[in-house]
């Protein structure tokens, strides 16, 4: 986006109309005196505001200008200040972005919390506090979120001593039976679900308060799989050393989708044009990953609702296995693909090409029958319907408030898909539909994923046609990219792609070197998981488990 010099001012009345892009002039007049400076990012105009104006500004932006999606909160420390950036978008048009930059002094890094305006800021600000050390005034529950409560210092702050040993006492991991959290006044029972529990899909700890079998309170406790991914990316060079990491965020077969998030951010930051041919391969690979990921989501959801001996789980794995084979042929790996490169992909389709096309087409031809089988086995099952319809209800407004994206939001009728709304790759030229369902319940989310599988198959089919007919001498898989990438110091960008679970965003600030000054990952699962509380309170334990399953979280991405 340009920094904009167009003088015309939009009338105030048109500000909130969906689809109408808010001009910078309108933003300026809306923020008025509160914008004390400009700090434009490559993706969006940026306004610097006072730490005390956060709620005021954000609620104005949401209510007056329609920026209803707080996509991400990035915090970072400069030599002279701390900074929190609120990356805001519109659900109606995610290309219409604005960044609100909130600097605070090093001595007293206190900034007003955005939580009262956007619920999703709750966890995002806790993470900023935990890792960077910015404190948020008015935040309801400012505790560490990824690191243990006894951790000393904030790992991404400047004065953090990595060499200093950390003492993590075992109090947190105490036998949960020991202190019986029994309340004298009420009949509720405290129950630890996880971190080792069959239904948490990884190491997630859900602190639950039960009233009989009814869930009275839920609080997910995350961070068990925190691997400092952001910091590791900050220590790698743009050109080659960062790309392997995204595979390890959402590690269940969504690798290429994650890689694309980084690829898109760095390519826009360094202004690299990716050859069309490479974009088609990327699109095809990413959609294969999406199918694999949705199959896994379906299978594990069946585990939660059917029990551990269900056939569905194995059926989905059987079908996913075919995709894994295709991806293995394409990328050379089954899980940690590392196939995308800055400016393209690592190599062309495997030889002999005909065999690859044939294999992939065969999979696509068999897919409708398989989806039909799933519909017979799962969604058509009456018991399954009584279990899933009207349970785990997530109203669209709540979903937006929590920053939910992906199938979770689309299952609640939020028509938001970055592939269409903020096009990248080759999606714009292809013919496919965004699936939304209005059920807002577990059933809608499952159906949404299953229908997305069919849409992805459509996309792959078209990509295959294009790839097959592509002239042999124009098969460029990589753009010309300098050996060392050194974007100008101080350029900042936030770019997101539609990952398997939703909006996967990357914020990069360049400091002039060949490594990022700040690398921030906006994980869709992180935001989606926040909504669990809203979905499961007042319902039964089985519904809590089913809702958790229908959110389709991967802890590798939640904790990063």
């Amino acid at each position, binding site marked *: 986006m340009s920094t904009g010099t167009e003088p015309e001012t939009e009338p105030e009345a048109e500000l909130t109309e969906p689809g109408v892009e808010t001009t910078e002039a309108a933003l300026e007049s809306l923020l008025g005196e509160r914008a004390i400076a400009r700090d434009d990012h490559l993706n969006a105009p940026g306004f610097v505001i006072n730490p005390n104006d956060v709620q005021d500004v954000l609620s104005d932006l949401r209510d007056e200008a329609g920026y209803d999606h707080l996509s991400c909160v990035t915090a970072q420390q400069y030599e002279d200040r701390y900074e929190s950036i609120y990356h805001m978008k519109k659900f109606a048009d995610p290309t219409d972005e604005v960044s609100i930059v909130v600097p605070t002094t090093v001595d007293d890094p206190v900034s007003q919390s955005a939580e009262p305006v956007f619920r999703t800021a709750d966890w995002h600000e806790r993470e900023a506090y935990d890792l960077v050390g910015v404190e948020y005034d008015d935040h309801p529950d400012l505790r560490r979120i990824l690191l243990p409560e006894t951790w000393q210092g904030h790992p991404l702050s400047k004065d953090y001593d990595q060499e200093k040993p950390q003492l993590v006492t075992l109090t947190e991991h105490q036998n949960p*039976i020991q202190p019986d959290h029994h309340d004298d006044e009420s009949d509720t*029972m405290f*129950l630890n679900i996880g971190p080792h*529990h*069959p*239904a948490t899909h990884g190491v997630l700890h859900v602190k639950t308060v039960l009233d009989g*079998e009814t869930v009275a309170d839920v609080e997910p406790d995350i961070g068990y799989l925190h691997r400092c991914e952001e910091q590791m990316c900050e220590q790698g060079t743009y050109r080659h050393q960062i790309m392997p990491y995204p595979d390890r965020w959402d590690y269940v077969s969504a690798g290429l989708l994650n890689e694309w998030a980084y690829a898109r951010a760095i390519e826009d930051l360094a202004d690299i044009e990716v050859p069309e041919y490479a974009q088609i391969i990327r699109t095809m690979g990413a959609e294969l990953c999406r199918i694999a990921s949705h199959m896994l989501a379906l299978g594990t959801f*069946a*585990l*939660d*609702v*059917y*029990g*551990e*001996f*269900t*056939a569905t*789980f*194995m*059926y989905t794995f*059987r079908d996913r296995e075919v995709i894994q084979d295709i991806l293995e042929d394409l990328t050379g790996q089954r899980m940690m693909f590392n196939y995308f490169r800055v400016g393209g992909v690592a190599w062309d389709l495997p030889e002999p090409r005909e065999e690859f096309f044939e294999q992939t087409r065969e999979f696509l031809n068999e897919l409708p029958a398989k989806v039909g089988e799933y519909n017979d*086995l799962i969604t058509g*099952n009456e*018991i*399954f319907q*009584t*279990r899933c319809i009207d349970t785990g209800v997530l109203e669209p407004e709540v979903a937006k408030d929590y920053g939910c994206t992906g199938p979770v939001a689309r299952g609640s009728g939020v028509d938001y898909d970055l592939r269409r709304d903020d096009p990248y790759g080759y999606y714009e030229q292809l013919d496919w539909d965004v699936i939304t369902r209005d059920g807002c319940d577990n059933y809608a989310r499952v159906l949404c994923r299953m229908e997305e599988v069919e849409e992805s198959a459509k996309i792959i089919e078209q990509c295959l046609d294009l790839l097959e007919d592509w002239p042999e001498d124009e098969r460029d898989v990589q753009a010309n990219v300098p050996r060392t990438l050194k974007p100008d110091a101080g350029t900042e960008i936030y770019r997101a792609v539609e990952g398997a679970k939703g909006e996967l965003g990357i914020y990069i600030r360049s400091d002039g070197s060949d490594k990022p000054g700040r690398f921030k990952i906006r994980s869709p699962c992180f935001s989606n998981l926040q909504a669990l509380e809203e979905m499961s309170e007042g319902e*039964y*334990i*089985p*519904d809590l*488990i089913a809702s958790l399953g229908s959110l389709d979280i991967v802890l590798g991405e939640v904790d990063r």
Partner: protein
Amino acid sequence: MSGATTPSLFPLQNGGDPVLLPEHITELTGLGQFGLAGELLATFVAAFIVGNFILAMTGVAGPWAKRKITASFTDRIAVNHLGPGGIGIIIADAVRLLAKENIIPENVDRPAYDLAPIVIAGSAMLGFAVIPMGSGIHLADPEVGLAFVFAVAGIASIGLVMAGYASGNKYSLLGGLRAVAQNVAYEIPLVVTGMSVVLFAGSLQMSEIVAVQNETTLFTIPGLEWAVPAWFALVNPFAFVLFLIANFAEVGRNPFDMPEAPAELIAGYQTEYSSVYFVLVYLGEFLHIFLGGAIIATIFLGGPAGPGPDELGILWFTLKIWGVFFLTQWLRSAVPRVRIDQLIEIGWKGLLVLSFANLGLTAAIVGVIA
């Protein structure tokens, strides 16, 4: 022959011909001449034989078969290394399970914690005493046979509560509570549906129920000269289906496996059990499934009846039990579990009403025919 003059454990019914297994053994070994003590010994020998037969089926073949059955439902191979079809895994499993350390958590409530596995497994074993398995394998035939089976099978609920409550684990507690709620809700439909069979047979005695089913001919398939016996499953399919459903809830299998529900409650009341205790609890589960199958086979599927000579009875009977077992595994692979409140609702509002309707209807029909 034990004469009419000496008191006997089993007064012979059918004109002095031995019917029950202890009688056969008394006769064959000549233990009868030692009077009551001899008969007692013969009874123990008979119980030993029947018990081992059941254990071989449930404890030894069952888990292996279950692995293979679920594997074929879910597109897997399962055990295949030791012996043909991996059948040698049975020995390895037995050694593994028995050799493991029996971990007893600090906070458990003993001796309830220790007794629960025995109650769970033992109650189901008792039920097999009155089941006529064909080929002369029938331990006892009291006049209240059917009531006895339901009564002893119901004892298992106590075992489940004991296990759930004594484990000192919240998941176990929830599992135990669910088990009670479920068993109370489904035992009534089960018994009431069973009563409709009694109305037909006019007796609670197991041998009598089997006999009535096989003596009458429901209809003859024209042209083939096949006399279709009046098995109650054919006479009253409605009762049969009701009984099947209630039985699945009773043994806690999909769609009613709420007490365990591993995705929710880890393993419910079993969570804290390990080693031999775990074996007993699990054995109890298997025994209950097989006992459920045995009851269904006896009161709905003509017991040991089948084509061929009577000596093949035990074969047919075993087949019928395994048929029910197979069905439970099928459901496990294919059917979701209902939620606990839905389960209770189905039990109290659905099955209970239907089972009483069935009972009333059956009574009316039997009355009209009679």
